[in-house]
């Protein structure tokens, strides 16, 4: 099992957190949803994995490349 940090690909605001520590996700399942450019932009699991930690809260501003979660899988 390898730990991986998941980063936001875009600057924006955290609109919704869709998973919590311990959540089991399939590839492409959303972890958090950002609001940017007036779009709902999911940050998704790149592989089937378990969420280790969510690093942001709803309403936070995140920058491009900023870590939003740690997964294991």
């Amino acid at each position: 099992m390898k730990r991986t940090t998941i980063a936001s690909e875009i600057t924006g605001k955290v609109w919704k957190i869709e998973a919590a520590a311990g959540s089991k996700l399939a590839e492409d399942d959303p972890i958090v949803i950002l609001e940017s450019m007036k779009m709902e932009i999911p940050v998704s699991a790149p592989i089937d994995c378990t969420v280790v930690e969510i690093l942001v809260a709803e309403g936070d501003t995140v920058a491009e490349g900023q870590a939003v979660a740690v997964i294991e899988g």
Partner: protein
Amino acid sequence: MPYEKTLEELAARRAAALAMGSPKRLAERREAGILNARERLALLFDPGSFEEAGLLAQSVRPEMAGRTPADGVVSGFGRIDGRLAGANAADFTTYGSSSAETHGKKQGFVRAACEKNGLPLVYLNECAGGRIPDIMGAAGIGRAGEGGRYTRRRSSPVLAAVLGLTYGGGAFACINADLVVMRKGSVLAVSSQMTTSVAIGEEADPQDLGGWRLHSETTGFVDAVVDTDAEAIAWIKRALSYLPDHANAATPVQADHADGDAAALLDLVPETRAKTYDIRKAIAAIADAGSVLAIKDRFAKAAVTAFARIKGRAVGIVATNPMFKGGALDPDACDKIASFIVLCDSFNLPLVFLADTPGFLVGLESERRRLPGKIMNFMAALELASVPKIALVLRKSFGQAYLNMGAGRSDTTAAWAGAEISFMDPAVAVNIVYAVKREDDPARFEDLAKEVAKGTSAYDLAAPFMAHAVIDPRETRDYLARHLDIFSRRLTGAIGDHRLADWPPAF
């Protein structure tokens, strides 16, 4: 028998050259599942069609003469699915297919013949770099600059496969190609980690220096990534099937084609424009089934560039993908699209623009990475392109991105019913123009949003004849097929002006 000794010598010389470099190296490759130069060419060319140039060539250095079969590159001509083409295949078992005088002359011979006769050219590359000592000294580097090896005129398609360690001249040949496929495990870089380590004291993993992830995701130099040599060659053959033999030939139209599934678009594309989806699925539904070949699929993913067929006609598709960055175009996306426009325009492929974008991706990072310049390069390529262009707005297209995605500057412009078009997203405009945020005053925000959203529908674009049609999404495929028929003929028989043929190789 007359000529007996003469013919024996010819046979012996041919056999020695066909044996390539050391048997040990050939065996190592076989064990690693990596093909040698001649096996690769056998996959590329139709059986029995290979006509070799320079089988008996060798190094100009007398002491190397017996040890440099074909001087490390197998060159010549053959047929790819019936079409004549040239190829240079690196023989890495002969001094790492390093660049040297005869080696370069052979490649130049095939390249010049392809340019002069309008034949596609394929590089199957590996290259240890410049051969030492040949390239050393003033005359060594001077010789390397002779000939036209760096000229890129996009007169006939050049396709390259990176199939191993590819440095120096071998890497530059790939950069100068129109399309590049890379086998995983290969490296494309100016110089190896050994040179890097000595030159600047930096230790680097070869994959970090020039591996498939770097080139498919960060530099965008590589158009596709595959796992095996055979897949790389299959990719080259497939990519070539969308292109004409040369710039003065029309793009092939296939008589037989599979149907698309445009009816599925209502389900594939969410009606709510803030919702994301993968536009690649929509493209697959619009095009002939199984006909889409993504170009640079892992790079700048907010933009999609792909070859496809619509009712048998090869086209280049440029789209924004809401799945990534909301479909907002960043500086890399601009480069990706501009280079694709250059490619399509050079080889007479009509361009279809599918816009579903909130605009260009604004912000610090984009401005630092030269977004305004990138937008204008993209626009310059669009404006100079003379191939047929069709612009279609799916759900929304705002601001400068609306213009860059071809609307109003194509042969024809259309929009899906329900599309929104404006200078900026109405919700952003309320914030900026009236300084009202939804969370502060929801009622006033909604009133103002309604006001600002007036005049932003597809019908508001159709009324002044700025959109020439407003269509049901399910009509997309037929609409495109019919309008490609109308706008593809030209007085030149579908041959473009090629004003982008001298565009820089990489930018």
